[in-house]
């Protein structure tokens, strides 16, 4: 109804993905912070994953907008 939900989903995960990726890069090598996560920089990995997911959703939203309004 009205809006295409793929767009807000895509936008939100792109924003959150960027946020966590940047935070992950800034805190890169911070052994204290990543001690609970077994030394893995989970912020960077989750951030990149969310960024990819968000962009895919945005791509699909853009695709279906294109087909609906030629």
């Amino acid at each position, binding site marked *: *109804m*009205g*809006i295409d*939900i793929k767009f*807000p*989903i895509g*936008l*939100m*995960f792109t*924003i*959150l993905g960027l*946020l*966590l990726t940047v*935070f*992950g890069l800034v*805190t890169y090598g911070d052994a204290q*912070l*990543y*001690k*609970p*996560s*077994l030394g*893995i920089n*989970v*912020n960077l*990995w*989750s*951030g990149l*994953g*969310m960024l990819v*997911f968000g962009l895919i959703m945005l791509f699909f939203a853009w695709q279906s907008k294109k087909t609906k309004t030629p």
Partner: protein
Amino acid sequence: MTGASFTLSWIDYTVMIVYFAFVLGIGWALKRYMKDANAFLEAGRSMPAWVAGLAFISTNLGALEVMGMTGSGAKYGMLTTHFYWVGAIPAMVFLALFMMPFYYGSKARSVPEYLKLRFDEKTRGLNAILFAVMTILASGISMYALAILMERVLGWNFHLSLVLSAAIVLGYTYLGGLSSAIYNEVLQFFIIVIGLLPIVILCMQDLGGWAGMKEQLVPIVSAKGFAPDTWTTTWKYTGSAAANPLGVEWYGIFAGLGFVLSFGYWCTNFLIVQRAMSAESPTAARNTPLIGALPKMFIPFLIIVPGIAALVLLNKHGSGFTLPEISPGHYNYDYTIIALLKQYLPAGVLGLGITALLASFMSGMAGNVSAFNTVWTYDIYQSYIRPVTSDKAADDKHYLFVGRMATIFGVIVSIAAAYLASLFGNIMDFLQTIFSMINAPLFAVIFLGMFWKRTTGHAAFTGLLAGFTIALLHHGLTVPAGAATLVKGGWICNLHTYPVEMAQNFWTAIFAFSTSALITVVLSVLTKQKKSDDDLRGLVYSLTPKLGVEQVAWYRRSTTLAILVLAIGTILTILFW
């Protein structure tokens, strides 16, 4: 609650704020489309199948489910998957293929309205009133659980948390109605999966994968007096009730969970069915539960497996993992997921995990409120207080207004129910018990009504009441072993003691269903059918023209999807036998 509290940093709060900005933003964006009651309460029957399908599964994936099932993972291991593979998938497939054509095709706007069309006014009235009361209480309990969690874990003020979360839920459901609730459930689905995924990966990494976890479980499980692989298998030890921690045999699981409880829940609960009824076409409505079933089958890996890992961590020296204790040696397993968040997640993804939990609490409330306002507006207000008039435009406006007021009313009563829950700790157990008593007879009646045209209104009404009464009696006469309060049963006298509460629940449902079905059949034969075959067209299987093969590509047909779902379910069951 020292075992599981933590402080959040600015990055965690930022994640949370971004999420809730989108939640409210979706409601705001939908506001201008809410022109009549149909748009507000039924989402204008315009949802694509994948949106309705994800909302369908998301409604069920509330926070109480996430917390409860992770806890059950620690308590019962992979046996918990019975709530998914046998306890949900067959019922979802049945709803999709055999029931959705009637729910959707009958043009009923709610499950109570289907009862009115198929049977009579009194059957609808009974169901509508029970449903409205129960739904709003359930919403209140969800709120209470959320506020208590924020108080204990994050140290937030209980009253402030309650009012703030109620305000957010009210905000987006008031603005966008059912569409808003559904879209936010889709958003919630993704945030839960993405928010909890790091925990699964990290705890598997920590314990050396599935094989490593299995090995470390051996001494723990043996010490409990079970075979060493009990926690990593599903059906292997269900030959006798004593050999598995659930305390139920395979036929109890099959009949109680796989049939009565799951069919009662998935096929008659309007909260769930409403999502499929909002779909854009009959095919989309049939595909909704099937699309929901695909992720449903894999949710155990997201929430049950970490629960099992938690049991290993709990018994591992130097892991630093603890759960709050109820009494010395008895852990509060409801906090398992929280404790795992604390154990593994650094600032950043931690905010994501907490947001996922908050999101699932709120969408649980929103789901209940949006189902409540539909039943209230159509089945109670429109039926008994102000019927439709000849002026359609004025009616549309009026019922939209009533729907909105019902949303406000629903949220306010929920807050009251939340305070009630904070006064009586057992109310949650009590309500869950009552819910299972209502669903099982309802399924018997709707099932007979859909597939046997002879079923009459008097029979259905009496069948519902009889099933509910028997469920109450059974609960009043039996107790689970070690029950401390009368809420758990035995409030009349104790005729039989079940080894565990689960077994008592299964048998309550089985008795309620059987009684209800029996009474409905006997009375249908004895009373006169007042509805003609014409009245029942589109409502009863034998009187409805067959759809034939759906006019869509073969891979989008419901039957193809259903076969795929059942095949994956079977493979998973065999893999973890």
